[in-house]
């Protein structure tokens, strides 16, 4: 897509927290109303709807009547992928104003189902559940162990990520760990869950909703009193290539083609990026993405973070809201929300000064026996 041709004109984010006791569809409705207020629009402006999950009957309960309602489910890459689909709908003339909606309440309910070959979760091909490989942490742990064995990454490097994310979240009232500092010793003392991950290497489920309103940059210019953010580049990659090449665990997932396309569309390089917001369910996610996006050399992600590389005054301030591990888990919308706040100058105590371009990643649809299948990259900008 042409750099800056699509604008995000509305963002609605509900309270994000543990066991809120609100239905997921109500979280989407609340987020929709916040997004409409943010953009100064009424419901009837929305003529496209994309639900980041399995759409069933949202439209009636949300009071919408668009031309289409699409379900998208590609795990943690769903959020950026929904923006790419929205851009496609707008640029192909199917809609003028598309709502991308998320709302989940996993911490108010049970664990997602498992066991069936097609059920959502870490339980597909390769029969992981038949050997007791259950939960997303173990799939990511396989990559972490590979990284430690080949590069000498240590548990303390993972701990450096956890402490840095907590330091970001510490002063952020929108983070679930607000006001709760941790030290590297706390990390080392936290219980081992699935080796090499300790409790403090893992994010926790939270409840919350988020809705974004996307339109053309041209239409955005006609809306008064809004604060639009622009999509400058987007890219996707699928881990099946690494699977066929039998080189899965040395990679995070298939970042290379996603990053190459996004940066080519934007006409930018890494040096232009002011802040990175990575999808980070586990500490290793930050380390490996820093390497595969090129912010540091292969194998150097651990020392890079330990040396302050993702701090506010570091080489690339990253996951400045505490990420998913210390901020909140709104699936792939966590990094998008923080990128939007940074580019709008709304990140408060962890605001990156004059942030103009933000890199956003999403990855997911847990491959069962590896961390993820799909990856998506967005480059967002404060100006068209």
């Amino acid at each position: 897509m042409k750099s800056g041709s699509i604008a995000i004109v509305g963002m609605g984010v509900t309270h994000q927290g543990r066991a809120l006791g609100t239905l997921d569809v109500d979280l989407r409705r609340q987020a929709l109303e916040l997004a409409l207020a943010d953009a100064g629009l009424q419901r009837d402006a929305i003529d496209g709807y994309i639900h980041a999950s399995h759409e069933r009957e949202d439209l009636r309960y949300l009071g919408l009547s668009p031309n289409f309602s699409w379900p998208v489910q590609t795990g943690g890459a769903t959020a950026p992928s929904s923006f790419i689909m929205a851009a496609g709908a707008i640029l192909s003339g199917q809609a003028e104003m598309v709502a991308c909606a998320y709302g989940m309440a996993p911490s108010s309910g049970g664990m997602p189902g498992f066991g069936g070959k097609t059920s959502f979760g870490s339980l597909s091909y390769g029969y992981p559940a038949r050997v007791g490989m259950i939960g997303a942490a173990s799939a990511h742990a396989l990559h972490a162990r590979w990284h430690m064995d080949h590069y000498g990454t240590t548990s303390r490097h993972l701990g450096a990520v956890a402490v840095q994310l907590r330091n970001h979240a510490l002063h952020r009232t929108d983070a679930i760990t607000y006001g709760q500092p941790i030290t590297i010793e706390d990390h080392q003392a936290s219980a081992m869950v699935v080796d090499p991950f300790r409790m403090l290497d893992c994010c926790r489920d939270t409840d919350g909703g988020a809705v974004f309103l996307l339109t053309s940059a041209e239409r955005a210019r006609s809306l008064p009193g809004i604060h639009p953010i622009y999509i400058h580049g987007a890219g996707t990659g699928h881990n099946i290539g690494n699977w066929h090449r039998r080189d899965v665990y040395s990679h995070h997932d298939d970042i290379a083609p996603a990053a190459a396309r996004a940066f080519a569309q934007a006409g930018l390089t890494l040096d232009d990026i002011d802040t990175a917001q990575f999808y980070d369910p586990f500490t290793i996610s930050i380390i490996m993405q820093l390497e595969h996006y090129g912010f540091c050399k292969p194998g150097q992600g651990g020392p890079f973070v330990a040396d302050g590389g993702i701090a506010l005054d570091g080489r690339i301030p990253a996951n400045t809201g505490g990420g998913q591990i210390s901020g909140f888990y709104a699936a792939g919308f966590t990094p998008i929300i923080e990128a939007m706040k940074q580019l709008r100058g709304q990140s408060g105590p962890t605001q990156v000064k004059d942030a103009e371009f933000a890199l956003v990643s999403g990855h997911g649809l847990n491959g069962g026996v590896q961390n993820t299948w799909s990856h998506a990259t967005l480059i967002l900008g404060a100006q068209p």
Partner: protein
Amino acid sequence: MSIDTIAPLIKADPDAPFWEAWTSDQRFLLHRCGICGRHDWPATCCQTHGMSAMEWVDTPGAGVIDTFTIFHRAYIKELASEVPYTVAVVRLDEGPYFHTRLVGIAPDAVKSGMRVCIRTGAGDAFPLFVPE
């Protein structure tokens, strides 16, 4: 643990020949392209030659540990008596990955690069691996 309760197999699945061979007489099959000789697991269509030459063939079931993880926590109550246990990624000698439980070795003695092979004669419902 009854793995059939935790993760039941699906009849008429593309991988059914693998399970039939394993459960009937502990043969370890891989899906092989008869034209280029590439082996795969689970069932796969050759990207170059399509599905027509794909066949299930007997293999020894041996390889090296590519990476692994140790479960210190039981995610479901049926596994509570089994922790800590090791889940390993075996790079089979024929090429494909095979994900399995490693038995016959203490979790803290497991190292990437170790040679391992399937355990037979123990009545395992799933092919588990042991040090070679």
